[in-house]
């Protein structure tokens, strides 16, 4: 996946992107001309009122939906040009997802959920997978909960399983649509801290949306959407530098 076209150095770039939904005979405009470039290693927060188009934007970046017009480049690929199968591959290899409602596979335990993307990728031995899963589960502080099923875990614990799952394949970009919306604020903060720490130590690009003003301030860069358009972009903090040691253990605790 080489970078070809778009903003040089940007891992994600959107170029006059429009997205309309059809509701019966009415066209509902969700995104109206988005131009945005996100560099590798950035910790980007998408904010904006309800209905402003945050989810729509993340879906386009996450390759689960396609733009009505304009180009969306992810990890160097023009997603509008890719087949269904290639999009699936892109999601599998380059992206990680964290969902608002965690979306764990309920019949698998924590360990198996985290291992799942590695199995989909194939090509790894059982031992390799176990090492990688153990490492990440320790990193998100769930070393003792490997064999708990999702319904035996709290919301925060589930979301940390989901984070471990999103990171297990070492994706270049992790997308999260309101990852803290179903958590109390303290837990939400801890989750954001964990993500931020992983961003710093691993250099993974994080893009997530939120309503929570406190969460917004954790961002490296804050993109504000209003009515499907970018209202403002603020540079808040320093983005992660390339990590000194990508495997440094994380000790964040909720």
């Amino acid at each position: 996946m080489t970078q070809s076209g778009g903003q040089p150095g940007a891992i994600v770039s959107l170029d006059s992107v429009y997205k309309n939904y059809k509701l019966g005979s009415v066209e509902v405009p969700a995104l109206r001309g988005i131009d945005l470039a996100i560099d590798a290693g950035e910790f980007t927060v998408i904010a904006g009122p309800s209905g402003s188009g945050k989810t729509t934007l993340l879906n386009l970046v996450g390759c689960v939906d396609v733009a009505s017009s304009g180009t969306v480049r992810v990890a160097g690929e023009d997603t509008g040009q890719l087949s269904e199968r290639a999009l699936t591959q892109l999601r599998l290899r380059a992206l990680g997802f964290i969902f608002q409602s965690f979306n764990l596979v309920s019949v698998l335990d924590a360990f198996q959920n985290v291992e799942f993307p590695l199995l989909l990728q194939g090509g790894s031995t059982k031992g390799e997978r176990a090492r990688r899963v153990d490492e990440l589960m320790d990193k998100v502080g769930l070393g003792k909960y490997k064999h708990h099923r999702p319904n035996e875990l709290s919301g925060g614990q589930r979301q940390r399983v989901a984070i471990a799952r999103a990171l297990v394949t070492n994706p270049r970009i992790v997308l999260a649509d309101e990852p803290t919306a179903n958590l109390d604020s303290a837990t939400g903060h801890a989750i954001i801290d964990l993500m931020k720490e992983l961003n710093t130590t691993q250099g993974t690009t994080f893009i997530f949306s939120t309503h929570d003003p406190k969460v917004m301030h954790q961002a490296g860069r804050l993109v504000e959407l209003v009515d499907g358009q970018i209202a403002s972009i603020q540079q808040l903090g320093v983005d992660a530098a390339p990590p000194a040691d990508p495997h440094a253990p994380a000790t964040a605790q909720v």
Partner: protein
Amino acid sequence: MFGTLIRIAMRNLLAHKLKSFIVGGILVFGTMLVLLGAALLGSIEASMAESITGSVSGHLQLASSKGKDQLVLFPGPLDGNEIGVIEDFPKVRARLEALPEVRAVLPQGFDYAMIFAANLIDRKLANMRTLRGKGELETYRPVRDHVRRIVELLDRDIQRIRGVIDLDKDDGARRGAEDVHHAAQPEFWADFEENFAKRMEFLENKVAQMAIGEDILFIRYMGTDIARFTSTFNRFEMVRGEPIPPGQRGVVLNTLYHEEMLKQKTARRLDKMKDKIAEGARFESDDELREWRRMNVTQYKEISWQLDDAAADRVAEKLRAHLGPAPVEAAEAASPTDDASGPAHAVDGLLRRFLDMDDGNFAARYQLFYDVIAKELQLYRVDVGDTLTIRGMSQGGYMSSVNVKVYGTFRFQGLDKSALGGMVNLMDIVSYRDLYGFVTAEQKAEIKALEKRSGLQEIAAENAEDALFGEDADLAAEASATGFDEFADVDMSKGAAKWNERLTDIVYTQAQIDGGVVRNAAVVLNDPKQLQAARIAIERIAAEEKLPIKVLDWKQASGMLGNFVSVIYAVLLVAILGVFGVALLIINNSMVLSTMERTKEIGTIRAIGGSRRFVLWMFLIESIVLGAVFGAIGVGLGAGIVGWLGNVGIPATNDTLVFLFGGPRMYPWLSGAHVAFALGLVVMVTTISTIYPALLATRVTPLEAMQDKEG
């Protein structure tokens, strides 16, 4: 990958216990049904195959390819008989026996015919004439008294029936009854010797025909190369007497036919009662036992009129000693209805008392019957050593007749109690051809020569030949118009007997046995498993050599009987289809529901990089696991049941079952093929029922994961 899929599948099954339990229950039941059905039918088919192939059909049957009707070895009423004739059988036999699979090819032919056994009064009257003619009056008189006794018994019977049935409506019957009554009067016998010719004529022409008319019996027989048949058909076993000497004419009777059709009726019923009691039946609870007992008592005459006065005295003495004095006897003697039409011998009442058996005395009386009474009776109407006159309807539709010696009785192992398989008797093929009306030029010449040598002047030569072979249609028409009685005269005359004796002495060569007309032929294989291979090989040879034959396997040749298994298969199939149809609907439904419930999970899997194919497999594997798990349970239970049945056996409760089971009990067994078939079927059913929901699942988009419902 597959590990995960199976894990997900197992977890899903466990997560939805109730649903899995219901679906699983149906699958277990269906699998058990398949397994039991396949095992039972497989066992039936195997034992039936052994029964039929080892006794009658061989593994394959050959018939002419030009026949109008299909060859049927166990014909039903609608099956035609025009199967044609195999041309050049010796060549066919030589070619086919050269095949490594083929052990033997035997000529065969099946037919029905009539046998004539003169009834008791006929025999006694003939005996009277002979003895009186020779002037042996000492032996003549008891026979005459015996005939008188028979007539009196007959008259009493008719008088009794008269009270119940209005005989007088039918003119013939009324006149017959009057004739018998006339002959039963003391006056008829008072001047018997003075009017011997007149009285005899009256008895022969008017009275004899009123005695039970069971003098014509049907016999079904197979004409074949006897010597080779007995050595190739492994179910064949001689019971009494000796096998027909190689190359000679003769019949051996099937034990079942001999017992069932030719044995004295009271004795036969007692035998059957003994068998039934041995199986645990008791008089008070068994209708059949009581019915047989009733028939024995009311038909005591079957015994009584075989006894002349001396024998009747002997039997009466023994019975009286055994039964002791009884009020019943006195009452019988005094009974006005019984004695109304003449004096009864004391033995009659004693017999009735004796035959009125119960659970307590059956064993002892059965023994006594054979020790005392049977010795005075002709137990079999035709027995080993007798010469039998068999008349058949030949191919041209006229009567043909042969006299053959009964060499012995045989049984087909396992089939001795089955009427279906047990009623076929065996005859040498030369006699069969005569009966069927096939005479070669060579045979004709031979017969001519024989006639000259045996000094057969009394009967017209043409007439005899005609009676036997009925070649000429005109003569045959004339012959059949004359009726059976004339034939009987011809056969009974000394000349014919002598002539027949000579005929039975001839030893036919293998060339003569094979060289005559052959309607169908049995092919016996070295290994029954090679049936298909052998069939193909034979068909190839037939095509190459332009042999006008067609090949049927034993099942096809067995007609209705062979179809029997196919019919049960069809019934079973319908049942299985029903069960699995229901399973299919239920699984399909529950899987569609589960697809809907799991939309978010599927979307998530798609979002994090699972392909459509993965989703498809996820569902398919789930159904395969479902099928495999519950199929295995079903197979386990089914195998348990088959194993149990295999130990205790399934009793054959009627003749058909005895035949199908190849014996009195069937011990079903299970083969790997049955298990594989049952498992394969159940997995196939679950897989098919999952295809639609699985396709639905592949349509779920990753967007579904993004809906922020709690999940």
